[in-house]
């Protein structure tokens, strides 16, 4: 069963900023890419989970044909009853520092 997806007001603003950072002619397509990626997360949030300071994160490629690929991510939390998944931030994936053992 898939989790119901929520997003905080702060994360929604960041997601909008991410989309608006792209050229106007592919913002609509990218919105669909994000929708598909987050549905995939809601279907199966645990495998390959990345984390930042103990917070689970999901990172995915944002690719529209004819444009350079970007990597975006979201941090999220799952409700205690395991029914809802709330996106707490959306971001561009940073370079990895420092080496994680």
């Amino acid at each position, binding site marked *: 069963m898939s989790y119901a997806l*929520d997003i905080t007001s702060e994360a929604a603003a960041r997601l909008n900023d991410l989309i608006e950072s792209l050229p106007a002619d592919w*913002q609509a397509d990218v919105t669909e890419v994000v929708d598909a990626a987050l549905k995939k997360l809601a279907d199966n949030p645990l495998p390959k989970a990345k984390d930042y300071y103990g917070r689970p994160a999901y990172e995915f490629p944002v690719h529209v044909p004819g444009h350079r690929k970007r990597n975006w991510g979201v941090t999220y939390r799952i409700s205690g009853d395991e029914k809802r998944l709330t996106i707490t931030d959306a971001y561009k994936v940073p370079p990895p520092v*420092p*080496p*994680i053992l």
Partner: protein
Amino acid sequence: MPGSALTRNAQVLRYLLEVAPGAGHTILAKLAYLADLLARQHLGHPITGLDYIYDKHGPFDASRFYSALSELERGGFMVRERADVGGYLGFPMQPLQPLPDSNLTDAEREILTWVGRTYGSLTARELCERVVYQTTPMKKAKPGQRLPMEDSGRSDPLEFDLERVLAGERAAEEGRVRPLASVLNELRARHHK
């Protein structure tokens, strides 16, 4: 001294000792370096005021580091022991009384806690060889040179930002959430072709 404000460098070292008690000079200095490196990337600014050079055992700001340790010792916040560490004289340090106050932010504490827990149990040699010497500032600098820490900072305000994540968590706790589908529908309307 107890009850009075400590310098930020002293607060950071004391906080790291709380997470990684028994750390010696080398390990404590490297934990501070790693925390600063992560903070530059994930907060956009360092946590300490240390200015690292490529020293004999890696990144170090000897004068500020030892000044902060002296501050902690004088104030009774830390005790430096002497111990045989693999045939060398070591100085494992133990935290004493809690910090009276602190101006470290929640995000800075998160980073310090993570660094201390992740790397604090390594030996000094492991920490240096497997982690510290693999970081970009150390690879870019030569012995004796100042480390180009600013080159490893966040380059884009839309990159991961721990403060933003914490703000998002607070919003979630306060119920300021919406169904993602409705947000995406708004974005579609705003960014339609």
